[in-house]
């Protein structure tokens, strides 16, 4: 139990704090892990591919998200 609790807190924080998008949540959690992997393993084809995939994935998802969302979400408040 004691080992699971902090992990849940991090997950809860990620889910509650972000823009309510599971893909971004995944990106947020995997980013620091990928950086640690790169720091430990160093530069090789796999880490380069993973890092490039991470960055390209982020940009692609953001662009897709932006162009796909038509109409203004109701939660945006205007004065």
């Amino acid at each position: 139990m004691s080992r699971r609790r902090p992990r849940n807190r991090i997950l809860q924080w990620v889910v509650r704090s972000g823009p309510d998008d599971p893909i971004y949540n995944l990106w947020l959690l995997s980013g620091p892990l990928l950086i640690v992997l790169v720091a430990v393993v160093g530069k090789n084809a796999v880490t380069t591919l993973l890092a490039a995939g991470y960055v390209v994935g982020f940009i692609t998802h953001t662009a897709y998200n932006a162009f796909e969302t038509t109409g203004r979400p109701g939660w945006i408040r205007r004065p």
Partner: protein
Amino acid sequence: MNTDTVAPVGRDLGWMLRVLGGLIVGSVLVPLVWGEYYAIPGLVVSGLVPITIGLALSTAFADADSPDKLHGMVVAAVGWFAIAVFGSLPFLMIAWTVTLTPEGLATPPATDSINALTNPLNALFESMSGFTGTGLTMVDDEGALPRTLQWWRSVTEWVGGVGVIVLTTAILARPGSGSLTLYESEARSRKIHPSIISTVRTIWWIFVLFTSVSILLLWLAGMPIWHAINHGMTGISTGGFSVIDGSIGAYDSVAIEIVLLPIMIAGGIAFPVHYLVLRGDLEGLYGDLQTRWLAGVLLVGSALLWLFLTPAYGSVAGALRYGVFQFVSALTATGFQTATQPAPLPIEAWPASAHLALVFAMIVGAAAGSTAGGLKLIRLAMLVKGIRFRVSYVFYPDSTVHRLRIDDRVLDREEGSREFGEAAIIALLWVVFLVASVFVLLLTLPDGAYPLEMILFEIASAQGNIGLSTGITGPESLPTAGKVAFILNMWIGRLEILPIVVTIRALLWRGGIYE
């Protein structure tokens, strides 16, 4: 200040110190990983001091009332200074550990950079520069610092970056306050969440995601991973501290410079706008007045700087490369420098017209609600539109209904005048503090050592929380009075003046000096 004010401020300050202490103690991981075991005792002691004081304060004032607008501003002003003071302890402790070489600790040889940090004023300067996201430094060679101190410098800027977003989007943005009015007029009331706590959470969320992307981008562009981690943190927070002597110019890599451009620009865009974009509202980006002005000023300013630099570089491509990077770095308040050795032309050798173009960028700054410094684009927009609004009075009869349009807000005559007045007051105070420091430097620097435009450049860099330097800032080159003035400039600039004025008034008036 009376007890009604002291108690909430004391409690919140106590919590801030506890968090700071936790950050310092948590940084022990870095010397453990890098084998810099001699740094651990100094780091632990540096962390325990604020934790102890913070515990005492937060316990003593545990029953204090909820903070109001006044408390928020006083906490911001006093807290930022206190954080800088206690945040200087790791510099001092580790520098003294290396200098004194205690038995049993395998310390490295003391370098000039380490020796400089044994001076408490230099350590405070470094800490204030970090927490305000300025990036001016008392260290001659950042590469010669222990990894632990390189990390701590980056952490100060990263945490300070989040701090200033919270300050502008949550603490200053209170109902009825001028900052809210100003912020609303620009960001269209896009407070991320109704409460400060959820705002902080969301900002951290975005910040961590952007930092990860920045780090991996820099690594892919060719930076070693340790450098990428530190530059990613200081880039997205538009801080500008480096871990290598000569800043970004030391890499002499076009790829790294190109990758840093969007990172710096992202740091200069209001974070609520980033949140909108992540939620799929692209109009949040191009529909935001500050973002549009940022794009416009970046394009026009970079083109002008390119023009000014082309004769000096003797190369259109060279002037474009260094001009664009330095203008983006100045306007977004990052302070990364490429025009350093071994670049063909260091920044101090640039023509006066180029220096003044950068001074303009450093004074204006980027968007309110971002990590950038300076006056902020919303105030520039308000001043430009407000002047036009005031002048138009003359040409119309009194019965005419005057409206001031700022983005999608329409302000009547009274609202428009109030917001314009607030922007004008902040701009005026900004210039007053700038000029005061110019006098300090003119009085204390050796006669004729630096031309006036370089002095202006350095002070605008400090007060705008930028970090670009023409070489005046340094442990030996900057006189003690100049260091004190710069510390105050950085503090004043970061807090956008108003909270400091409010704190001084609270100290004088509520403290009973006038009673």
